[in-house]
Structures are given as structure tokens and as C-alpha cells.
């Protein structure tokens, strides 16, 4: 299925081309690949850091940029206090540094491609990264797929890719955006001021022109459990609900 992609998934070096602070805890890292690869929206890469004594640390990060043929990919990395790899990216890594990476990886959490069935995306925090790749791809490819995104974040300022999402909401006719702010009252009437629950998922799904045929959920395990159960509650088959759990 993803044989070509798999064959290309060798370790390679890339260079940090640009670092952009997105929220108080999330930065985007634009990496220039030495060996460009084709990927699908939703896939991830593995990053490997090596200490002087040869010790290595490896972590997975979703590709947030849309497939475009470019040799540049964007990762959005959230700083976890006491983490091993994410604080390195936030506190130590600089533009011009060389990082080892392999990809694209993951053959399951993939944008479905040519289909007019509406898609519901549900993410929390940095879990919007692979969903952003899908939304950006949806815009660039002009596929006629209605998309709704329900995104949970602590506050308005913690909403990853907020300004771009707001812009897409007004410029893309069949894209719906709903924010769920867990530690702040929302100012927009279409947003929510609480944690995600089943009625909220149903509310956002109903904003699509037809009921969603596919649901993608990404975030912490606890978040994904609630969102995936809520999607089952919409009457979708389990196989139509794809989840990416960031492990914790």
C-alpha cells in the first residue's frame, strides 16, 4: 500500500531552516531534507538525536505541512516539561543545526483522497499537526471535500495555527472551525468553553453539509478515547474512525 513511501524511509540528515514560535509552548521547525520524499497528509517522521557518547533518543513527529513536492517539511513540537527531546528542540536547537530523521512513516492515519464524503477532524493541542497537513492539502488540492475541525486548546493563545485556521475559515467555503477552550471563555459564539464531550462532537459534525463519512482524531490518549467514543455515537463504523495517539 505504501511500499514506495516505505522504501524511501531511510535515515537522512536535514537542516533546521527556520524556527517559528506558534504558541507559548509550541514551536514550528521547518526542516530542509537532503533527500526529498513524497508523503501523504497525516504521516509522521521519526527524529533521532545522538549524544557525544553515542546514546540516541528517538521520537515521532507528525508532518504539519501539506504534501507539495517541496524539500521542506514543517513539524510543530510542543515543549513538555522534563521531556527529553521536546525541550531540546525548544531550548537548544538552532537554525542551521543538522538533525537526523526518517520518513515518511505511518500507513493508517492518512487523508482519504479523492472522495466527496465530508471529513470530521478532532484534535487537541499539538495533535492538530497532522490534521493541519490534511486541511492545508485540502485547500491546495481544491478537492471538493467538506471538512470540519474541532480543536481543543487551553486558551485562545494556545490554539496552534490559530490565525491560519481563522483565515481558512473565512476563505474556504466548505471548511468549518470550532474551538474548544478548556481554561478560558470563548469570545466567538461558534466556539466552546469546556472540555470535549459527545454533544459537542455531534454539534460540530452537524455543521457539515452531510454527515461525516470519516473521522480523524489526534491527541493524548485520554482525549482520543472521548472523541473516538463520541464519533462512534454519531453512528459511524469503528473502521471509519482513525486515531493517532501521542502516547501519553
Amino acid at each position, binding site marked *: 500500500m505504501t511500499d514506495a513511501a516505505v522504501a524511501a524511509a531511510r535515515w537522512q540528515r536535514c537542516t533546521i531552516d527556520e524556527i517559528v514560535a506558534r504558541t507559548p509552548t509550541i514551536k514550528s521547525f521547518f526542516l530542509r531534507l537532503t533527500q526529498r520524499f513524497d508523503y501523504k497528509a497525516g504521516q509522521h517522521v521519526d527524529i533521532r538525536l545522538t549524544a557525544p557518547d553515542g546514546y540516541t533518543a*528517538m521520537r515521532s513527529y507528525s508532518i504539519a505541512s501539506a504534501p507539495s513536492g517541496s524539500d521542506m517539511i514543517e513539524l510543530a513540537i510542543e515543549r513538555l516539561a522534563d521531556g527529553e527531546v521536546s525541550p*531540546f528542540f525548544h531550548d537548544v536547537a538552532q537554525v542551521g543545526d543538522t538533525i*537526523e530523521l526518517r520518513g515518511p*512513516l505511518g500507513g493508517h492515519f492518512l487523508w482519504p483522497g479523492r472522495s466527496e464524503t465530508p471529513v470530521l477532524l478532532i484534535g487537541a493541542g499539538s495533535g492538530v499537526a497532522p490534521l493541519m497537513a490534511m486541511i492545508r492539502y485540502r485547500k491546495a488540492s481544491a478537492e471538493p471535500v467538506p471538512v470540519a475541525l474541532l480543536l481543543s486548546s487551553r486558551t485562545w493563545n494556545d490554539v496552534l495555527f490559530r490565525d491560519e485556521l481563522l483565515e481558512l475559515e473565512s476563505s474556504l467555503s466548505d471548511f468549518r472551525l470550532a474551538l474548544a477552550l478548556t481554561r478560558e471563555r470563548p469570545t466567538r459564539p461558534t466556539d466552546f468553553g469546556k472540555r470535549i464531550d459527545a454533544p459537542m462532537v455531534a454539534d460540530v459534525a452537524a455543521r457539515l453539509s452531510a454527515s461525516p463519512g470519516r473521522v480523524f482524531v489526534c491527541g493524548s490518549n485520554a482525549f482520543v478515547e472521548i472523541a473516538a467514543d463520541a464519533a462512534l455515537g454519531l453512528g459511524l463504523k*469503528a473502521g471509519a474512525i482513525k*486515531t493517532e495517539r501521542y502516547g501519553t
Partner: protein
Amino acid sequence: MATRGFTGRNSGSDLSDRIPPGQHLVENFPVLTAGPTPRIEPADWTFTLKVGPRPIKVWSWSEFNALPRTRMTRDIHCVTAWSKLNTAWEGVTIDDILADAGLSAPTPFALAHCYDGYSTNVPLADLAAGKAMVALNYESQPLPRDHGGPARLLVPHLYFWKSAKWVNGLQFTERDEAGFWELRGYHIYGDPWREQRYTHD
């Protein structure tokens, strides 16, 4: 290639005989699943043993729970690079399942099948001789739903995607047939000590 400025949290630790290359230790127990968590009541649970397409034996939850119990404490290694030491499991070894069905070594390979449609392939040699079990308890408690409860396969010496959650059957096959992740770019065997993560590793 050393990464500029990276020293690492576990740098210099002497657990290298316990932690395979590229892995790091965790204290928690991360959950990674490709879809919603299935809800299976023990009353509805069955386990089916097949050879090829032919069902050999089907156990209900109470029949399965009457089989001999074995405890195993093992280190486990997830392909997403975390390892967890000394995890304690209790369940029914594949040897005891085969014995109860009156089989010894049906075919050289097997596919584990699951309630969520997931499958994974494991050679018989890695299932038999006390190496693997269908686990029912974790740390002396019934297996939590998000970790595969009521029952999951446990093949602790291979990457943990082989330890299929919500298992409901074992199918013996003549050939080594790729399962869910093995068809999606993951290694056909998955030995953490040889870092067999992806297809061509």
C-alpha cells in the same frame, strides 16, 4: 552523527542489556491504537483457534478462564521507541491453548486476529515454549480496556504491536502472512534487539 548540544536524559546509564537500541525507558504505560477502543463484554467474548480456514476449537470466557494460568514478568518494547521494564502479566500460554485443543505444532506461522479487525503475524517458534500468552491480567488486575481488555496477546520479546489487543483468535498458516501493520510498512518479524521497526530494517 552527534547532535549539537544534545546530551540525553539516560546518557551513561548501564541498562544497555535491558533497553534495545533506539529505545528509552518510560514509567507510565502509553496507549497507541489506530481506532476507537472496542467495548467487549466477557459474556460476549470468544476465542477461536483455526488451522488455515478451519476452526478447531472455540472457547467462551469462562471456558478460557478455566485453562491453566501462567505468570510472566517481562520488559516490553514499543516501536514508537519506549520500553517499560518488569511488566507483570497473567494469562494462558499458547502451549496450554494448543494442548487444550489437542494440537502440538499445526503450521510454522500464525496470525492473531482481534475484535477491531486488527491482525498481526508471529511465527509459531515465537509463540510456543512458554514465550507467549493470551494475557488476561496486568499487574494483578483485569486487563484495562484501553490496554486490550478483556484479553490481549503477549509476545514480549518482539516489538509490542505484535502483542495484539482485544485478541479473539489465533489462525495457524503455512506461510508467514503479513498482518495489519506489517502491510502498512512495519517489519514482518519485529525484533527490537535488531531494531526491525520498518519493512527494510
